[in-house]
Every structure is written in structure tokens, then in C-alpha cells.
């Protein structure tokens, strides 16, 4: 049994299927993106029991009994989350491929109450790669939400 965005799923699955492939191919939650598939790019980041993890470095069977949040679980009733709204305001994406991973990594930092500032945030978000934005608007969006807590 795995809980994804609040919904429980009981399914049989081949042990070699990663959590990322399970989310995308079995549940149709294609917001979780696969870039490098070996833990370098961060595009597939999801929350596992509230902690940001690489869903490409986890077999879906390992999430048995645990709760997963994907980018589809951030908005409530069609309303963008504060972080999603800040990404839009700051134009913190261009092609959007890396965006789900950034949103969930940053959401985990905000949820866990990690102290954030202009100095430490680039290092904390270094586990997510973006090829379009030059990172500045992403940092601004996260810091704006952090400042409004």
C-alpha cells in the first residue's frame, strides 16, 4: 500500500520499477520528470513522508507503507500553492522541465523550517539542475515565500 497525494494505492509491481516510473507509468502522474535517472539532475524529486528524495533512486516497493507527495499534490482545489504562485510571478522557469523537482526540493526546505538566505540557498538547491533560468528567479521565488512565512 502506497499513499500518493493523499490517495491510497494497493498494486502489484515488479520490484525493479523505480518510484518515478511507477508514478508516471502506473498512476499517470507525469508531473514527476525524469532527466538523468541516476540521481544527478533532481528533476524527479518528490516528498517521501515529507522529506525530499530522488524518485529515480528508490524502487517503488521501498515506498510500501509510506506517503508520497508529487507536484500534482501541491495545489489545493486547483489553487496554486504559495510557492507555485511565486514561481509564476518571478518567471522562475522557461521550459519547465526542472520545475517540479525545484518546487518539491524548495517546499521541503520551507516545510522543515531550514533557515534560508541569499548565501546558503544556492548550495541547498544545488541538487537540482536548471538549464534555462540561470537560477536567479528560482532563488527569488523561494526567498519571497520564505520571507512571508
Amino acid at each position: 500500500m502506497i499513499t500518493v497525494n493523499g490517495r491510497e494505492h494497493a498494486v502489484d509491481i515488479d520490484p525493479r520499477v523505480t518510484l518515478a516510473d511507477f508514478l508516471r507509468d502506473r498512476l499517470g502522474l507525469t508531473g514527476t520528470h525524469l532527466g538523468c535517472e541516476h540521481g544527478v539532475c533532481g528533476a524527479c524529486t518528490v516528498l517521501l513522508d515529507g522529506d525530499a528524495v530522488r524518485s529515480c533512486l528508490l524502487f517503488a516497493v521501498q515506498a510500501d507503507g509510506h506517503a508520497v507527495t508529487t507536484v500534482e499534490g501541491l495545489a489545493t482545489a486547483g489553487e496554486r500553492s504559495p510557492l507555485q504562485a511565486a514561481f509564476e510571478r518571478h518567471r522562475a522557469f522557461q521550459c519547465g522541465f526542472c520545475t517540479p523537482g525545484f518546487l518539491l526540493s524548495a517546499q521541503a526546505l520551507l516545510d522543515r523550517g531550514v533557515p534560508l538566505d541569499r548565501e546558503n540557498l544556492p548550495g541547498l538547491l544545488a541538487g537540482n539542475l536548471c538549464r534555462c533560468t540561470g537560477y536567479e528567479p528560482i532563488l527569488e521565488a523561494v526567498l519571497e515565500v520564505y520571507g512571508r512565512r
Partner: protein
Amino acid sequence: MKAAPFAYHRPRSLEEALDLMAEHGDDAKALAGGQSLVPLMAMRLAQPAVIVDLGEVPELRGREGPSVRAMVTNAALERDPSGLPPIIADALPHLGHFQIRNRGTIGGSLAHADPAAEWPALALLLEATLTLRSRARGERRVPASAFMTGPLTTVLGADELVTGVSFPKWPADGRWGFAEVARRPGDFALAGAACTVIGGHRRVVVFAAGPRPQLLGHGDEIEAGGDLHAGAGYRRTVAGRLVERVLAQAGEVA
């Protein structure tokens, strides 16, 4: 980039895990946090027929002060490094990105024995002792200096598990330094160095430069190898500078 098929076991106790390792021996790989093994499987550099997932083995969780059980995550140690030698708190933020530290474990990193990884270097530097267990040999305690024999190679038997690692008590007057160079924060280091100074006795370890962490005696040459990330000359030079830097952090003159 998809792992080859394997049989999956998720033991609920250490006894059950040891039985599975004894039964499947060479065909089996223990899965800890999976942050090294899963990418190797995705690239099919590793194709174990059997995976023994240690994620639900209660005896491998938790710690008593400086005695850490194998499945304790790097994130847990980063949140609460109390009772551990203080160099560990300085090193942990370098140990992959925080998303990796949420899954990666101390036992998994030591058993994997990547030459560029921090735990094998810290264990050697701090004279840690690893506890290993198997059905055939029971429990044995191995000093870190005898554990890692080469890149990704240790004395761990095919049927054996790392169950924990124990660090000596840190003296109040101990000093230390830690530094590494990586292309991006959280990536594997291209070269790293760490030192302790305890009661006037200096201990220096260089890592990520050569085939395994190197305890650097006075006048020793740094063992360095080259690959597509950096040449041997670069690594030797950078590691040498990092040794000077960590000694300075510890208040020593190189």
C-alpha cells in the same frame, strides 16, 4: 537506464536478513539507502539477482552516542550530531545533496567504499571500528584501516552485513579540519582532505584523489589517479593544498 530484473526480499529482522544473505551469498546485494547501488543498477553496472532491502530491519536503526547503527541516514546525523566527533558535523553538508542525505546511510556508504566518499575517509581518520555480521562468521569487529582494500572493495564477505560503526570518544582539546573541492556543492569531490590534532598528535587523510582514502604520514607522496573528471596531477596538487588548508583550520602549520 532501467535496472535488470531481480528477486526482492524485505526482511523484518536482522536474523532474517542474515539468513537471506547466507542463502543467496554471491547473488545477493544488500540495499541500504540505495543512493549508490540504485544508480549502478540503473546503468546495469550492477545486476544482482537478489536484493535484500534492509529498510525494515529495526536492529539496524538508531545510535547510542558515537556508536551508530548501519541504517542511520546522513540526514539524521546532520540534524543531531551530538556525541559524535565534531568533524562529522562539518563534513556532512558535503555528503551529497540534502535529498541524497535523506536516504543515504552511514553503513551503506562504508560498505560501498567509493574512494571519493566522505565516510570511508572519516572512519579511517577517526580510527572508527566497524561491526560486521554473518551467519558463517558471526560478529566481528574490523578497524576502518583494515576495512577498505581498494576502490569499491572491502573485506566484507558476500554473505556479510555492516551492522554498525563506532567512533572513539572525542577529547575536549581535539582540533580538526575538513575541506574538499567539487565541481558543484554536493557532488563527489575531485579531491578532499581531513585532519585531527589530538594531544599534539597529527593525523591527516586525503580522499577522492587515489584508489582509497590515504593516511598521509610525514613526507608521504599523495597517491593520485586521473579520470575524465580530473587528471592525476591536478588531483595531487589540489589534495596537497587541501592538506595545508585543513591543518590551518586545526591551528597547525603545514
